[in-house]
């Protein structure tokens, strides 16, 4: 408190901070980026370890024998799927009943706000089939879920086959202390959403589904399985869920531990693990892995069918079988044994997975970066608050004319109204747009969004004709800086990656903007640093990371489809990225745009 109460030292500190403001900001920004890049460097990361005692010490012997039979079931499933031309509900019910499960079905239907062109669906109708294996050893208060999506075409038949094979095998074991629910969901996430909402008696997205006839206890953990070939070379673990939520790290540890034990090659983000961290290529490999995770998390969409479980406080992950031209071919029996082992360990859980980390990034499956290590990278970027302090000092020195409240309030209100328009108009006016322009509904939505966004740029010039004063823009900038800091801080807490990526472009824009700059050049820079452009770079960068670079033309189309997917994710599953950008980030950026054109 001495520092805060002694006026001389305060004055010295403040004058130091205001004098060195610009260099401090630049240095901190650089340091923030450098810190973030350093996260992928192996000596700076922690090794993963199993924190949960219940899963750590017990040895499990896996004996699942029936891989071939499971594949045969998968082929049968595929044949029936072809015959019915969708989910073979009757066959599934019968097969599950034969295996001694309590079987139930759930019908659901959902009309999308506009057609999904990636998956070619608009009016979705489907059925989920699930069978419950009742726990013989304990009261049925807890449950585990194993799910496999029923996808059109030739995909995922092996996953359903293996699921049924495991169900048959699990049925004959006596050690289950938790109900195990085997779920085959149609229309991937939409079906999953219907099932989860039915299971938990909630309805957050206005979907139609029939109530569930049978349920188990509270679900402790879930795995979603995706297998499309009889043999696989490696298994890929997908963790990123809705709104960038991640399951407890112990689930990843469990997967990793069993892959090690059984000798299956395992990957994360499709990237193998490497041991040469001290070489340049090894480092860039782990940077790539980390960046892929950051990009996926920032997108806020579920990257597998497990993604919606996380919303209900259920730890879940998707396991994908990869078949590429490598050695180490593994058959279905091995994967079955791996899953058996994982479920037996999950069966031992005494309480929900909570011991390990929830906030982490993974540069490889064996290493992770916890919140304590990555948050400083964000905090260093957020040093723009210093700018606010500087402005405060400038404003606080008494001057003859004090700015009216109105001069700040008008831009604030107008930019938020623009944000509201960006949020509501695209879906509201799609019919009208389709009538008047030669575009499809999806295109109409995306193009309206882009149009509103661009129109917003023209608005703020006219908001302060008579009120603009020197003091006025400083107050506005102070408000906007604080707003940005709070906004990014909250975003980074919920979804670090999104917060970080937004900060990366918005912070420089916020820091440099004043009305006294050359207008054209700085307007160009502001547009380049705006949220929409950030998304554009992210699309290209993501393709680059996936080693599938695209031309500008394709990239643009991809960009449009990413926007439509983002809007759909919001309306279908309740992803928060679109409203966050439209209602808060974009208006905040408009405030800075406003300052640039202050008269």
């Amino acid at each position, binding site marked *: 408190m001495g520092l*805060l*109460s*002694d*006026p*001389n030292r*305060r004055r010295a500190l403040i004058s130091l901070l205001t004098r060195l403001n610009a260099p401090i900001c630049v240095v901190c920004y650089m340091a923030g980026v450098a810190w973030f890049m350093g996260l992928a460097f192996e000596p700076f990361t922690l090794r993963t370890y199993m924190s949960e005692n219940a899963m750590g010490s017990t040895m499990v012997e896996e004996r699942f024998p029936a891989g071939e039979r499971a594949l045969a079931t998968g082929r049968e499933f595929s044949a029936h799927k072809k015959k019915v031309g969708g989910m073979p509900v009757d066959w599934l019910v019968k097969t599950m009943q034969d295996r001694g499960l309590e079987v139930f079905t759930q019908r659901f239907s959902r009309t999308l706000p506009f057609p999904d062109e990636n998956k070619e669906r608009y009016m979705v109708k489907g059925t989920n089939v699930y069978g419950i294996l009742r726990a013989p050893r304990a009261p049925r208060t807890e449950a585990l879920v194993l799910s496999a999506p029923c996808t059109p075409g030739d995909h995922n038949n092996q996953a359903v086959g293996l699921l049924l094979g495991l169900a048959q095998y699990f049925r004959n074991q006596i050690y289950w202390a938790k109900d195990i629910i085997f779920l085959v969901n149609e229309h991937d996430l939409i079906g999953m959403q219907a099932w989860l909402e039915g299971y938990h008696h909630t309805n957050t997205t206005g979907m139609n589904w029939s109530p569930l006839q049978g349920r188990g206890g509270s679900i402790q953990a879930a795995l979603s399985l995706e297998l499309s070939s009889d043999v696989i070379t490696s298994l890929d673990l997908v963790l990123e869920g809705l709104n960038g*939520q*991640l399951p407890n790290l112990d689930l990843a540890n469990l997967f990793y531990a069993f892959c090690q034990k059984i000798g299956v090659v395992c990957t994360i983000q499709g990237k193998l693990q490497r041991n040469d961290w001290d070489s340049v290529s090894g480092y860039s490999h782990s940077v790539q892995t980390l960046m892929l995770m950051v990009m996926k998390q920032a997108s806020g969409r579920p990257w597998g069918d497990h993604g919606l479980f*996380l*919303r209900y*406080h259920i730890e879940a992950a998707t396991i994908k079988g990869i078949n590429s031209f490598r050695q180490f071919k593994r058959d279905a029996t091995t994967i079955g044994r791996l899953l058996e082992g994982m479920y037996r360990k999950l069966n031992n859980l005494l309480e*929900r997975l*909570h011991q390990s980390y*929830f*906030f982490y990034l993974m540069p490889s499956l064996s290493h992770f970066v916890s919140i304590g290590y990555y948050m400083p990278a964000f905090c260093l970027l957020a040093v723009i*608050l210093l700018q*606010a*302090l500087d402005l*405060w000092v400038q404003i*606080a020195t008494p001057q003859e004319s004090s700015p009216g409240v109105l001069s700040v309030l008008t831009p604030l209100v107008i930019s938020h109204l623009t944000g509201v328009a960006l949020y509501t108009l695209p879906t509201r006016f799609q019919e009208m747009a389709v009538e008047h322009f030669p575009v499809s509904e999806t295109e109409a939505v995306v193009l309206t969004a882009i149009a509103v966004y661009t129109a917003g740029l023209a608005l703020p010039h006219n908001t302060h004709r008579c009120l603009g004063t020197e003091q006025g823009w400083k107050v506005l900038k102070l408000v906007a800086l*604080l707003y940005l*800091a*709070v906004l990014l*801080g*909250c975003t980074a*807490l*919920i979804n670090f990656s999104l917060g970080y990526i937004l900060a990366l472009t918005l912070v420089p824009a916020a820091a440099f903007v004043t009305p006294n700059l050359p207008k054209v050049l700085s307007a160009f820079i502001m547009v380049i640093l705006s949220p929409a452009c950030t998304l554009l770079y992210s699309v290209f960068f993501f393709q680059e990371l996936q080693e599938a670079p695209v031309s500008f033309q394709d990239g643009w189309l991809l960009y449009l489809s990413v926007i439509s997917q983002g809007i759909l994710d919001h309306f279908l599953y309740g992803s928060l990225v679109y409203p966050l950008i439209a209602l808060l980030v974009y208006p905040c950026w408009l405030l800075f745009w406003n300052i640039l054109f202050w008269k």
Partner: protein
Amino acid sequence: MAAPLTVLLILSVTIRAALYRSSLADFIAERVEVVSPLTDWKRVVEGLALLDLGVSPYSGDVFHETPLIIYLFHFVVDYAEMTFMLLVLFQFRKQKFALEADCYPLDCLELIRSPKEMYYIPLKVAMFYLLNPFTILSCVAKSTCGLNNAVIALFILSTIKGNVLLSAIFLSLATYQSIYPLTLCAPALLYLMQRKYIPVNFQRVSFWWFIAQYAFMYLGSLFVIIGLSFFLLGSWDYLQSVYGFILSVPDLTPNIGLFWYFFAEMFEHFRLFFLCVFQINVFFYTIPLSIKLKEHPVFLMFMQLAVISIFKSYPTVGDIALYLAFIPVWSHLHRFLRNIFLVTCVLVVCSALFPVLWHLWIYAGSANSNFYYAITLLFNVAQILLMSDYFYAFLRREHHLSYGLYLKKINGSEATLVLK
């Protein structure tokens, strides 16, 4: 004066009405920052239902409002929405008048305030109260905290108008609502004595006589209210359920106060001791503050309200809004404030982080109670800093009033004041 006030009223009512009708209202009514177990509207409705069924509303562990409130609402439950709106209207009108009267006693003509500024203070107070997001939230959540605030505002108003009887009655009502306003009797007494030119001197008979009068009126009306509640309900259940609930803090639902985490973590056999420590905290500051500020009872009242809203057992944002509404009254202190920027930033950031961390803790399950409590602590520290900053500024202004604004050292250079 009337026109801007009308505009303000219309604006604030519009905001509230819009929020009432929107889907946000339910969400807001669930927020732990906005409603406490004491002020939750859902619990009041539950209590009313129990009463209608002929069961004592205090028989469960749900209802903790005072009996008079329940009978008040008994008549108006069908029009609950409108009533709340009216209550809030009523409340800030009073608030406004209170502070209109409030600005005159602070005669500091020599230093800063011009009559023009004084003229706008009531409007600013009304604006600070009506447009404060905290008040809006607690109004939309139909928190009964608005009623408590109204009673306290009426008390302040009647005190400042110099009406001893009304002041005592409203003070007893406020005490009856939530015990803590008891500490406001010190500033009220000081103010009334100042107004009646009774010196604060323990040797004088007139001093003791006045205190006895006030105490008689206060205790008398308290007795009447409590008796009335007893006859309405026919049992003393409510004492345990309302005051026992406030003092012994059995409900540890997280809120923006300091109690819940501490008492959730504590071993049972220390509980009583720390309860006493925590509760004494609210009352204890009355003594030193009254001694230091005995010349300035209105400022003392502000400090007391702030202390109550920080240290009470179930604070909500509505309580904070009450003392924040006083801030325009002290606009002449602004040049002496030191940490106002820091404090404002912290308060704003904390208010934004409350729902975020709550989401992470309760819904996402990825954070835990420590995250939320850390923010609670920070929020309260910021409030305490704000308070002490105002206190410092007030004392410093007093100092300048007696020694001149620009201090010189003995050798003629400009001196600075250092607080040690």
